């Protein structure tokens, strides 16, 4: 407990960010105790009701209990983002280390491709992938589609870090003391890169949630799952805004904003750890 307090004091922004990011999950966890998430499916309650004592967030046009939708959907939205983030970071670590540490023609080729693919508007390719998958895309397929164009950022960051780290004297020392390449990578370089890895993971998760909600909001998501993006899609397609059904579109927006604010604060906090020089003006 005491240690956690110290950590919070040392890294206030990072801690607030983690708390903010976890809060929707806590809400969902507590919500599971009070509500039957089966009501998140269509046709389970009376449609088009405003919030009342029975349905705390009302119901949508299809008769979903929107409180149950929020409870069931929050973990799904985060799941897609984190899965895609993990895949991208994994690809980034493998490619970043291979190219940064070994260099040579492999480095040239991978760099050519990362630099080229960076400029592609990813949503365009994701749309082609998503419509090509038979009718109903699953959450896992979505994560794969997203990570297929999200690995370039982590690869670049990790490669650059490996390049600077491998020239440091302590790496030279461990090489002279007989460690092989794998030991150097896993015992010396990787631990020194943790803040950067965490930062690029946060970036990848942010980008992936952004992409998944975007794909879902235009109707290319998993139709059966009550994710935040799908809820928005239904709300947009039934013009819930102009029908005054704020209880339909506002909760997913608030949840997404909370998730993104949390990720933003985490990124800012990690940035302070990774680049301590980035403080404000000194005058």
């Amino acid at each position: 407990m005491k240690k956690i307090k110290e950590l919070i004091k040392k890294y206030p922004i990072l801690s607030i960010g983690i708390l903010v990011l976890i809060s929707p999950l806590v809400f969902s966890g507590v919500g599971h105790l009070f509500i039957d998430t089966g009501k998140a499916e269509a046709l389970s309650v009376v449609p088009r009701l405003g919030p009342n004592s029975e349905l705390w967030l009302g119901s949508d046009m299809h008769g979903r209990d929107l409180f149950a939708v929020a409870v069931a959907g929050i973990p799904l939205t985060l799941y897609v983002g984190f899965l895609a983030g993990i895949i991208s970071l994994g690809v980034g670590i493998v490619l970043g280390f291979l190219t940064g540490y070994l260099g040579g023609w492999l480095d040239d080729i991978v760099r050519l491709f990362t630099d080229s693919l960076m400029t592609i508007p990813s949503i365009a390719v994701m749309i082609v992938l998503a419509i090509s998958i038979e009718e109903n895309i699953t959450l896992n397929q979505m994560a794969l589609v997203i990570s297929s164009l999200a690995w370039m950022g982590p690869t670049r960051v990790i490669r650059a870090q490996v390049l600077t780290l491998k020239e440091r004297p302590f790496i030279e020392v461990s090489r002279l003391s007989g460690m092989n390449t794998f030991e150097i990578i896993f015992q010396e370089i990787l631990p020194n890169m943790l803040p950067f890895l965490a930062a690029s993971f946060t970036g990848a998760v942010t980008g992936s949630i952004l992409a998944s909600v975007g794909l879902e909001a235009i109707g290319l998501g998993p139709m059966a799952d009550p994710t935040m993006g799908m809820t928005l899609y239904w709300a947009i397609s039934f013009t819930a805004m102009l029908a005054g059904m704020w209880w339909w579109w506002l909760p997913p927006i608030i949840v997404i904003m909370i998730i993104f604010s949390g990720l933003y604060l985490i990124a800012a906090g990690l940035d302070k750890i990774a680049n301590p020089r980035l403080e404000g003006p000194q005058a």
Partner: protein
Amino acid sequence: MTFKFVSKRILMFFIVVLVASSVNFFIPKLVPDTDPVSIRMMEIADQGGVYDEGMKAVADEYFKMFGLDQPLWKQYLFHLRDAATFNLGVSFTYYPSTVMGMIWDALPWTFGLLFTATIMSFVIGGVVGALLGWPYAPRSLRYIVPPLFLFSAIPYYMLGLLLIYVLAYWLPLFPTAGGYQIGEIFNFGWGRMVDIIHHAALPALSIVIAEFGIRSLVTRGMILSLYGEDYIKLAEAKGLPNSRIFMWYGIRNTLLPQFTILALHLGHIASGAIIVEIIFAYPGLGNLLRDSVQAFDFPVIYGIVYFLILSIAVATLLLDFIYPIIDPRITYED
């Protein structure tokens, strides 16, 4: 600009274009049961066409017409040839409109929206960010502005939805959707201009608000690093007014690096703008893309995707080549 740099940059451009056109060719082929001819035949059947032996003949004719009876490598080469000559085929839904024609109709809207919103976010974000990094700027600014950065963490389309609710539904100041007043004859004139700006205001605003945060963070970082430079010290020692140092020694030197950032971000900005257009039913490429996704109008979808990637690639290439011309310090020597 060395020959090596130019050739590498052009190679990168061709990789992007090749990836774009190959994605369009191979991904649909990897998926079973979605060859365009059977989809078309099903559509004909849906519309009340009859099933008989004639269907088989029609299908064969279609296969021949689109070259689908050829081996795969030949089809791929044909596809690349068509992509290189912008022969993107015809729409299923709006047959016989060509995909290219539909793209040209939608393009001015997207371009206008993106261009103005990008310029606005660069100007506003640049000035605000520079002020944040400048030691003599009013202190209050440092407490007011950083919370606004949270907006940059929020996706474009969320801001769009909120803006629709607040400024179009709750306070009906702006139209909720569309690019122009429907039901009038489309002519160009002052009233039309005002109408177009009126409709573009909210979509543009949601892009500007979201982009502004990133822009100002970047400029702030640049100003901070500039402040230790000798020429700033000299300007101060000469007794120049602070505002003048800020404008002509500070901001001026942050302008050039913004170009590279712009080049790297174009793809990101375009991705966001597509979704903003969909939210606002703005008559650009994004909206066309949504409509064709819903109608499974594959040629139009692939056409837009290819065109988008190609135009971003061209823009990035041009920016990269212009950069060393406007900034003589850049030589692109490895």
